[in-house]
């Protein structure tokens, strides 16, 4: 089932990328990123059948990091929203050079 898993992984990952590209809502973009991370997890799990349990250990790490990322990211979104009353990316251009 490796080939099918990898195909699914690729599809999910690309869907996540497309989501990041077409959305302007910061929260949805965030969710898309989570989808991309999950897709990668599936790769790890699929390969762990052939390469041992280390892949599953990495999934645990990825989950931890994505949890931390979600916590900080959402806190940032809240902070931005508090300042600008919006989370639309087109209105957030503090980095303008």
């Amino acid at each position, binding site marked *: 089932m490796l080939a099918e898993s990898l195909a699914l992984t690729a599809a999910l990952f690309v869907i996540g990328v497309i989501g990041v590209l077409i959305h302007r809502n910061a929260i949805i973009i965030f969710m898309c990123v989570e989808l991309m991370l999950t897709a990668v997890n599936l790769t790890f799990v699929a390969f762990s059948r052939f390469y041992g349990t280390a892949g599953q250990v990495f999934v645990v790490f990825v989950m931890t990091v994505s949890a931390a990322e979600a916590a900080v990211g959402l806190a940032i979104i809240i902070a931005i929203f*508090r300042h600008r009353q919006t989370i639309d990316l087109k209105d957030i251009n503090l980095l303008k050079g």
Partner: protein
Amino acid sequence: MEPHYSLIYVFHFYLFGVIALASALTFVTRKSPVTAALWLVNTMFSLAALYVMLDAQFVGVMQVLVYAGAIMVVFLFVVMLLNLGHPSELADARGTGWKLAAGLIGLGLLSEIMVIARTKLPQQLIVPRDFNEQQFQKLNAVGMIAEPLFKDYLLAFELTSVLLLVAITGAVVLGRGRAAGAR
């Protein structure tokens, strides 16, 4: 090298795969954050099922607990906290031209990944076919993750705990806002 799978196994594998894919597609096309989040939860669940089918029972459980349970709930909390989902916020996605371009880019990316995925696997790292089976017999579902986690990857594990600590602190500081910080 892959074992022969029973038809019922294959059927369920494809079933959850299609559900995951369909949910993901629905998720990515939603404009409302709440709807999107619920579809994403659906994807996570079906992925959890796939993990279990791929002999990663512990990871499957964690997927449900951490992703579907914790992370997505936090997302929904934030959505509700910010009172999003308001009709004015629904004009979210970009225009058609952008969507078309994003679709093309996605197709390109997909084909590239497919090409790269055809790379031959490194044979010398492959473990014996019943390795995971034996680990499972010996250590059970949690133990077969815990043993390498606390032995081989102990340092990484400890560093992850530091990362979580930092993330919590950061989230708290950011969440308190400027007024609170100034106090």
